[in-house]
């Protein structure tokens, strides 16, 4: 039987079981790396470095995980903090890597043109709106969970999601028809 995230965390806590932590990384690497790739506007190398840093921090601070939120929410929060610290260090976020976006597209599920426009429109959103939209609309977090990840008030998250979605809808109006 497959262990739940909580069961794997317990193994890490009690036995320092790095295999259990490896399973947690395998389960969540795609969503964490995906989130960071979009926050960094397509800088895959930077996103993967940040994701690696986030998982190592999660391991070192796993005793701080109290189980009040889902493990994935806790991870997103660490990943977002890694991103924020790095962005502060760099002052300016990197530009969009169009070639890599194109290379990673999935033509079977989304029209490549739509995907390109969607990612481009996302990258044009201000960081606070982009983060809120990515967490809530793409990664399926509730407003409350997103507020915990971003460490901002619930009302602000709702406003940011609403504004971000409106902007995206306006930009992508032609695809919605």
């Amino acid at each position: 039987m497959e262990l739940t995230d909580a069961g794997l965390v317990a193994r890490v806590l009690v036995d320092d079981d790095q295999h259990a932590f490896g399973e947690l990384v395998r389960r969540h690497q795609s969503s964490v790396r995906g989130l960071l790739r979009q926050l960094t506007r397509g800088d895959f190398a930077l996103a993967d470095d940040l994701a690696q840093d986030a998982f190592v921090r999660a391991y070192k601070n796993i005793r701080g995980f109290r189980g009040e939120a889902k493990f994935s929410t806790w991870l997103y929060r660490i990943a977002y903090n890694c991103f924020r610290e790095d962005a502060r260090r760099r002052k300016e976020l990197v530009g969009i890597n169009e070639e890599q976006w194109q290379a990673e597209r999935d033509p079977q599920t989304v029209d490549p043109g739509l995907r390109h426009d969607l990612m481009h429109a996302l990258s044009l959103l201000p960081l606070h709106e982009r983060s809120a939209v990515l967490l809530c609309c793409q990664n399926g977090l509730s407003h409350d969970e997103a507020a915990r990840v971003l460490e901002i008030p619930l009302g602000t998250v709702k406003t940011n999601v609403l504004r971000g979605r409106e902007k995206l809808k306006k930009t992508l109006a032609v695809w919605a028809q």
Partner: protein
Amino acid sequence: MNEPIEQDWLDRKLQEAAPYIEDDGFTARVLQQLPVPRQAGRFLRPFILVGMSAFASALTYVLSDGGRFILVEMFRLTTIPTLWVVAFALASGMLVMAGGIFAAMSKSNQIQS
């Protein structure tokens, strides 16, 4: 508080536009970066505790003139009424049991979380 996010065309497209990212050695790289597990320290811990206790006992024995105070205290114990000894044993037992229950509860909470 935890209201579901409205699912519409935009949300669906956003989710579809985020394909699964293959691991491609990412997990292995993360595991290489992790600090060494504290298994060795954990293994040594009981030996360190026993060693320290033995050392402290030996030191006490030497500093207390060959442990003469133990004989004195033993003699004093024999003069204590039996009821007091039983009460003391009961209280000690309950104290140890309370400690054990507290440790078990905190461990169980840790595992559940």
